[in-house]
């Protein structure tokens, strides 16, 4: 694993540097507050790597994904992706960006245009980008369908003729049709039946090896994240609280929130976690985040220092960073 001191190496496929995304929210007549959806996040994804991004509602992971895709403008910081720069100035070149990063969406029932055949959904982008024309388009469409486990005759059907799992396969095919380097998977299996999830997870992993892809896997399901990720980042209320290799995060989690997430998972075989690991109370509103460490209102280890000073990501082990004043002690 790369030493974090060499973070801004040109080797990274995706390099996010101190990204902030704020949304102004009207709080009454002429009063505005900033909703800090993403509040100073720095991350890298290396080629061929799968980075798991974990967090609960309001943590900013979806906004982060949209910013990487160029769909939401950063308020501060920059994103470097395969030679493109997304910053606070002019909007990015969407056509060029489309060939570098794509997304697999959560809801297979809402992510396909009901009035288009599968063929059109897959062929239009090819034509739009001038990648193929005429007969070659059909060949590529058929090849992609085969790759995701569907048959050529499926191309002429409409989305409503498919099951949830099949629709997700089509969504994956669409994300891959332009051969991007990075694929953001936003909760790709949470809307699917449990018995189908394994199929899709296996498919995603196969495709990653087959097509030499990198993934940013956003999920609240820690079991899935542990299974697919090489590295994991944990977000809470717009900030990163912990990053590290998958083994480090799951075997020796450094941040109380990470421990609380793991403790909260009802697992079939693990014993019920001790109450001391759990987080109490509700996630605070992102409009009024607590001062200092955002997590202190729910943290079993909270001290005065936590309210006064915001912790920064510190190295606790090789490539394992934790943002907690008591990280080293608690390991």
């Amino acid at each position, binding site marked *: 694993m790369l030493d974090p001191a060499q973070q801004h190496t040109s080797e990274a496929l995706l390099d996010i540097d101190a990204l902030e995304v704020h949304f102004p929210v009207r709080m009454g007549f002429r009063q505005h507050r900033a909703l800090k959806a993403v509040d100073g996040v720095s991350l890298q994804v290396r080629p061929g790597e799968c980075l798991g991004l974990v967090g*609960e*509602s309001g943590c900013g992971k979806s906004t982060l994904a949209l910013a990487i895709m160029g769909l939401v403008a950063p308020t501060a910081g920059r994103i470097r992706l395969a030679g493109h720069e997304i910053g606070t100035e002019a909007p990015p070149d969407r056509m060029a960006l489309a060939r570098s990063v794509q997304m697999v969406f959560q809801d297979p029932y809402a992510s396909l245009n009901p009035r288009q055949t599968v063929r059109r959904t897959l062929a239009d982008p090819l034509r739009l980008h001038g990648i193929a024309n005429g007969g070659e388009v059909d060949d590529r469409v058929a090849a992609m369908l085969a790759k995701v486990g569907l048959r050529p005759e499926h191309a002429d059907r409409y989305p409503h003729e498919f*099951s949830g*799992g*099949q629709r997700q396969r089509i969504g994956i095919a669409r994300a891959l049709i332009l051969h991007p380097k990075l694929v953001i998977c936003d909760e790709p299996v949470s809307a699917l*039946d*449990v*018995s*189908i*999830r*394994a*199929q899709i*997870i*296996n498919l995603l*992993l196969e495709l990653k090896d087959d097509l030499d892809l990198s993934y940013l896997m956003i999920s*609240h399901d*820690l*079991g*899935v994240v*542990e*299974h697919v990720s090489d590295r994991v980042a944990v977000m809470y209320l717009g900030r990163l609280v912990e990053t590290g290799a*998958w*083994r480090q995060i*799951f*075997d020796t989690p450094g941040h109380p929130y990470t421990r*609380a*997430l*793991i*403790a*909260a*998972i*009802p*697992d*079939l*075989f*693990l014993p*019920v976690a001790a109450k001391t690991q*759990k*987080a*109490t*109370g*509700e*996630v605070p509103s992102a409009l009024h985040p607590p001062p200092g460490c955002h997590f202190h209102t*729910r943290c079993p280890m909270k001290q005065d220092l936590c309210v006064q000073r915001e912790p920064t990501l510190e190295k606790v082990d090789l490539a394992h960073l934790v943002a907690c004043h008591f990280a080293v002690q608690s390991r």
Partner: protein
Amino acid sequence: MNVGAPLLEVVDLRIDLADAGLRHAAVEGVSFSIPRGETFGLVGESGCGKSITALAVMGLLRPPLAIGAGRILLEGREIQALPQSGLKRLRGRRIAMIFQEPMTALNPLSSVGRQIAEMFVLHEGAGWRQAQDKAVEALRMVRVPSPERRAKDYPHQLSGGMRQRVMIAIALACRPALLVADEPTTALDVTVQSEIIDLMQELCAEKGTAILMISHDLGLVARMCRRVAVMYAGRLVEERAAHDVFRAPSHPYTQGLVASMPRLGARAAHGRNRLQEIKGVVPSIAAYPPGCRFHPRCGSASDVCRKVPPEQTGIEGGGTVCCYHHA
């Protein structure tokens, strides 16, 4: 615990779905029983019939769904054929229900304190003042901070976890014998979910309320329940102690489900292996296969499986399974 008659008994339940003149058996041959004070899990994927089974127990089925056959006994009395007036007397007092989406189950135009207080007024004949005090106590019981102030809030002012606590307060207000919970935590964050489950367990243990927990989340049900019934395509395929169902499942479907889920710690222990898949898809109601409904996806299917649906048979260690080739 009363070892006598079970609190809830469902015998050979069939629920029919009327669809343009045809009648499909959405749920068929379902039998299980819940003793007093026990937590019982009903688990399965979407479309397996678990939610409509819960609705049938509450008497809340509406056309095109209706109970086609079978019996439901609450405290020894048959309730499946009770008219709405009889059922209304039971609901809230003997059986209560909480739902997945509290926003649609709570009245958006009424403060939460009022909605809880209504329970006391309706079922215990309390006066409004007394009922409102009891409502604040109920909020305290479900661990809502500053209950006197929260009682005046409207549902939209509360977070998802808070609303679910309010739902629990309403449901448990009159100490029902049975709490039916239909995916109560699916819409909540995982840390909040954990707290709500703990709360439910504690409160119900305290009051001796049995829980019928409906969920698609195997882990949740395993953690929370003593006994678990697994449903697939409208049939009950396995019903055993939670511990046994997940450590050593007997039905191929349950085996497939458990094997297909990525488990924390598995990769560290065994390396990353390809997840075991269950091939095929869940059949739709209109196209249930003949014989055992799982046979097209089953690795052990044989001729008899394709023709004759298996019966619920007892297995050693207690419980039943519905399969010719069970483990």
